[in-house]
């Protein structure tokens, strides 16, 4: 069983990306042997009203049993709260918020309120550190990356909120993990999409230092080719049980409550 917690549907505004249509994503899942993908609507990440993409997302994933929706929530816009109830009704494994793209302080009052609401709704809150390498971003793509300090602040802001952080690298993960109490750190899951493999062996080190239970399989496809996440697991000397933990069991046990 392999669950990709970090996939997108829809066009990217800053360059041509193949494979953004639902049928192409399904082909990619087949190619890389991914059984289930948690998908976000990519275009609405850049919209003033990102929640307007959720209806399309729900409609689309309803036709594909391997897809689960990760709707967007903009806590700075009036009327956002019912979005969480809709997410639960549609079987969403998480909701996402990209505060820098929305023009919000990533640990400001709006996002803290959202974190508390997600906690109450028992929905993990997904946030991306970045979508692309900072060195290659389009000149007009200027939203700041998610700072590690914001993740530390948010996990402290509510004692039951669960965070799913995608596209984080080793330094980011270490800063947050060891800058949090064990209880706080145990409520954060990291996708492996941006963590380096050999010869630097960042993922191998993090599995030992931070713990295998903190990591989930994520690709960032189609912005990134999904083969990468599989290849880095294939290069890790993990037993079957620990590999299964990353590929699906941590997501199922920790995030799908």
């Amino acid at each position, binding site marked *: 069983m392999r669950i990709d917690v970090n996939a997108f549907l829809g066009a990217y505004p800053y*360059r*041509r*990306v*193949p*494979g953004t249509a639902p049928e192409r994503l399904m082909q990619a899942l087949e*190619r890389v042997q991914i059984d289930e993908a948690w998908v976000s609507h990519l275009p609405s990440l850049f919209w003033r009203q990102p929640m307007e993409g959720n209806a399309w997302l729900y409609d689309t994933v309803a036709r594909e049993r391997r897809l689960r929706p990760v709707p967007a929530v903009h806590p700075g816009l009036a009327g956002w709260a019912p979005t969480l109830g809709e997410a639960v009704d549609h079987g969403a494994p998480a909701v996402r918020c990209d505060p820098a793209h929305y023009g919000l302080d990533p640990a400001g009052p709006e996002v803290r309120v959202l974190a508390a609401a997600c906690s109450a709704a028992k929905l993990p809150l997904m946030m991306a550190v970045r979508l*692309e*390498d900072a*060195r*290659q971003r389009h000149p007009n793509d200027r939203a700041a990356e998610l700072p590690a300090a914001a993740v530390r602040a948010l996990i402290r802001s509510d004692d039951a909120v669960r965070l799913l952080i995608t596209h984080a690298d080793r330094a980011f993960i270490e800063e947050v993990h060891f800058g949090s109490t064990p209880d706080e750190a145990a409520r954060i899951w990291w996708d492996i999409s941006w963590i*380096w*493999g*050999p*010869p*630097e*062996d960042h993922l191998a080190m993090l599995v030992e230092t931070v713990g295998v239970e903190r990591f989930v399989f994520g690709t960032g*496809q*189609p*912005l*990134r*080719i999904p*083969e*990468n996440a*599989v*290849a*880095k697991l*294939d*290069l890790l000397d993990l037993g079957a049980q620990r590999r299964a933990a990353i590929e699906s069991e941590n997501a199922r046990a920790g995030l799908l409550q």
Partner: protein
Amino acid sequence: MLIDIHAHFYHDRTPRADWRERNTSRLSAGDKIGVTHHVASILGTWGLTSPIYFPSPRDVTYGNDALLALQRQHPDRVRGYVTVNPNYTTHARAEIERCLGAGMVGIKLAASRRATDPLLDPLCELARARGVPVLQHVWQHRRRDWPGQEASDGAELAALAARHPDVRFILAHIGGGGDWQHSLAALRTVANVYVDLSGSGVDGGMLEACLESVGVERLLWGTDLTMETGWAKLRYLAHLLSPAQLELVKWKNAARIFPPGAFPAD
């Protein structure tokens, strides 16, 4: 065969206490991936006693010696690029002669001097005379100067390649950050520049754009600092290319541009 045309190793005079582990990890991961040959460079002392991209002559020599030792230790699978700093022309030329004579197979130009600079010309002339390729470190669309390096971009490498049409150049790590579309646009008609697919970037659409811009016969497989991304690109290419085309990227293109005898099966 699978030739990694962009590898690095470390040695005892670098800032890294884990240099042995990193070298071992590269070879071990290479075994899993199926890498038959690591074509590597060492950039001086990686910053210990001179900057990574501006290595002193003494550090250049030490790094090249360490790589020659690795080549002797693993004659079946390690090949070397001789690293030079073009600001020290006499030393650079002597180092190229020394290291090619000792069995290295290419020249590594990092970022000590812009690719458009005339100081690179005598080194490229040596590359032509000795029939070895030049691997040029490239920042994919350098919009400004970056600290620590005098980086070149694809357009600047294209200018160097135009001045030396008989030299084969390798544009380093198309996936190494920066605007790879800028580089590909610059290289489209520059037949003596090959694209090294290495780098941590695994952007959707990048490999299709490489194929569309320069064609399969100018693509070279490599890893640089992230071997999983190299393996991922190889797996993805297997779905884009015919088996014969994939062989070109895996090793045949490399075997064509490195000196005869650099690899056993060419």
